[in-house]
């Protein structure tokens, strides 16, 4: 009973915060509305006794949104706090994509004949999760993490075509003698 109530509350929060991402007019609010949505999903996972996955979802998503805040000022041309702006771009195509995705996933969830559970879950799900990830799938995980990291770095490099590394050095007026000991150019 209590679980049901908690589940529904979290589910509503997750969806409402997800909607808010597109309804608010500030980057900061959109970012943290997304964080709230993810946190609610993470907490729902706790209800399934998937404690590790739930907590790690909360951890990763909050961290991700904080990093997003850094990217936000890096790549926004104007002061995003003050400029009310629409969080929706390319409305029609995105609407079409969203509807199709939702229909496919939802119909899949409803129509698939889910198998009934055979056997019982392991006593410690964290251990079995760790064994699954770090056992036979180890190679995949290692590769994926390296690829993801390279993607992030690559995206940053592409987004900042002329960084300080190859332009001015650390000084703004063109003295390239690296006289600022703390400059990131080092």
């Amino acid at each position, binding site marked *: 009973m209590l679980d049901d109530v908690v589940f529904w509350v979290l589910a509503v929060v997750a969806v409402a915060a997800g909607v808010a991402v597109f309804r608010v007019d500030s980057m900061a609010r959109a970012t943290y509305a997304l964080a709230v949505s993810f946190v609610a999903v993470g907490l729902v996972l706790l209800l399934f006794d998937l404690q590790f996955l739930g907590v790690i979802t909360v951890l990763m998503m909050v961290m991700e949104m904080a990093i997003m805040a850094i990217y936000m000022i*890096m790549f926004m*041309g*104007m002061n995003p706090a003050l400029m009310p702006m629409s969080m929706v771009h390319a409305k029609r195509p995105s609407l079409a994509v969203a509807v199709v995705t939702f229909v496919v996933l939802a119909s899949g969830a409803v129509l698939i004949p889910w198998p009934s559970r055979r056997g019982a879950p392991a006593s410690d799900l964290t251990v079995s999760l760790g064994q699954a990830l770090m056992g036979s799938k180890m190679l995949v995980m290692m590769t994926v993490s390296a690829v993801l990291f390279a993607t992030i770095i690559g995206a940053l490099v592409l987004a900042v075509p*002329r960084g300080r590394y190859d332009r001015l050095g650390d*000084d*703004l007026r063109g003295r390239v003698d690296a006289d600022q000991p703390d400059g990131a150019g080092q």
Partner: protein
Amino acid sequence: MDLRQRLATVAVHRTSALVVEVPGWARTRWAVEREVRRRGWRLAVSPADADLLVTCGRPGPRLADALDLVWAQLPGPRARLDVPTSTAVADALNEAAAQLRDDERQRRDAADRPVEPAMGTPAEDDSTAEDDGDAQEDDDHGDMDMGGDHGDMDMDMEPGGIPLASGGGGDRDGLDLDVLHVPLGPVLPCWPPGLLLHCTLHGDVVAEARFEVLGAAAGSPPPRRTYRTPADRLDRAAQLLTLAGWDDAATQAARLRDDLLDAADPAFCVPVLDRLTRRVRRSRSLRWSLRGLGDGPGGDVWDRLLELLEEARAGLAGQQPAGSPTPVDVVPDLVAGLEFSAVRLVVASLDLDPTAQHHPHAVST
């Protein structure tokens, strides 16, 4: 005594004072700071943090305007004091405490104030020469004229009447960060009195700066000059240590400065100063943090801190102070390209003396 009054009585034990020095009135500021410390009050770091605004000396019109703006930013309960001389400081602070304790008075004051924060005047606008000159801890973007001189702003994009920051062409990272015009000073703790530095910020990096000195009121009697006295050296060291985030050592330096205010016996002060110097010299983390910062003719910030302490020692030993202050116009060149915190440390370490009339064209009353 009702609850509100009791709360007020307790609260006044920890009154937070924003002490502002008009150029030349250093001795008065020291007297106020000493009295503040003696009572267990503390010094505020920003208007939002302050209950009490103390003006030491007679400000010129522009500095007075800046003070009025800061006064409007004090959250309240609040009190304001003008202390023209270093005598009778204790009585003035007693009076302020009584005002702060007076709940009825504070409630009337609160009722008279506008609820919405006011928009400041642009700090960059030279044509009007009306400068709010507000501290960097200023409460809104209103008086930071953002992007005004870039001329690429669409006037429609002014939510809340605030011009937007603009991406600057000269951003060193090619990141198109906001360009903000943020004034540093003149009402700023641990900052040369009356100095107003108009900074153009890319993120938290100062791209360029322009300075002005807001002086004292015309015709006010010039107070005794303190430049290069041992107390002055210690005061600068204390400010530098405060900015470096080392309260204990800063307090030690400030206490010694206050002792000298009473013309204390050098035989007592010298060992204390030596202890402080040893402590600072030994601090590896302070050295690590300050080394290599603001390299100039007199070495880096660390060197200049030690030099301040050594000069104080020499002064106590009876040597006549020698040397002249660093001209203020080296500041813009030194701070360009530095991060915000570095700017504060570098400026505090420089031997600036805004009362010296090196640049009459830049001093406005």
